[in-house]
């Protein structure tokens, strides 16, 4: 019996956001507009999903000032990176399991 997919990540917008942030090396953070651009979401949609990811402890939201303009920086937490790895593995296991139309061991 395979475990269910992490519902925090298993939604298209949140998977996009998580993947965009996962592209950053450890220690780096991304501004809200750049994340919006990379994830391909509207600002409102992004804000909603960021809240869910933050509640789950998967992202860090840092508010800062750059030349007196407020800037929001986002990055994945260690928990968030691990969650993405676990989600990816679970996804592959799920699709490799018999009865899912994909022969076992043929994951790319």
């Amino acid at each position, binding site marked *: 019996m395979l475990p269910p997919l992490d519902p925090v990540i298993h*939604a298209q917008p949140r*998977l996009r956001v998580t*993947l965009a942030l*996962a592209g950053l090396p450890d220690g*780096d*953070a991304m501004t809200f507009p750049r994340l919006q651009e*990379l994830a391909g979401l509207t600002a409102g949609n992004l804000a909603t999903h960021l809240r869910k990811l933050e509640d789950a402890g998967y992202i860090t939201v840092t508010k800062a000032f750059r030349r007196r303009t407020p800037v929001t920086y986002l990055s994945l937490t260690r928990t968030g990176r691990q969650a993405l790895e676990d989600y990816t593995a679970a*996804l592959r296991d799920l*699709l490799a399991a018999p009865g899912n139309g994909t022969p076992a061991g043929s994951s790319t």
Partner: protein
Amino acid sequence: MGTSTPAPEGGSRTGPDAPMSPRDALALLETQRDRVSRRLRTDIVAVLAGWGLTWLAGFGLAYLASGSSPVVSWWVAGPVIGVLGAAALTVSFGLPIWQGRGIAGPSRQVTSMYMWAWALAFGAVAAINAGLASQGLPARLTPLTWTGTSALAVGALFLGAGFLFRDQIHYALGGWILVTGVASVFAGFPGNFAVLSLAGGGGMLAAAVPYALSRRRSLA
């Protein structure tokens, strides 16, 4: 799916908030991972290939335009070298700066210091050669000192990148460019151009290959 997301506005079953099948999720994961990587990471293949081509064609044209019986006019070689150089600079400096917009953190500091290292090194190359000229270095030697000091700077910076990032390809390329620089001086004028074109340009193009192959392997 057990998600606690509230129903999407308008109750739509399509569009970005629609439920996602595991198969769709894996497809999205793989395409997005590559797409994000391309947009955030410096394309080292493009950088090495760009400079390799610039050295190969640029110094090659310089060789053909030099000496007692030039095959090519400087009116042709000059602009081509300019365009190639501008393209290589765009790929190695302009593009990474553009890619880094909206990103903050240690990697940005490293990138910035790396780029300044190149700018400072070539500033010094120019100043040293100008100084040599003002100190009375014979004109017949200036092509040799310019190309020799440039190759020294490039080789040393690649060595540095090699040991800092534990990148053996960059380290080997750095060593090779240093040897090329030495050889170019002993080749005299205009042989120095030929050495830098074939050995220098060729070396950089060759160094691009393992990066391109490992990229292909990681996508397979």
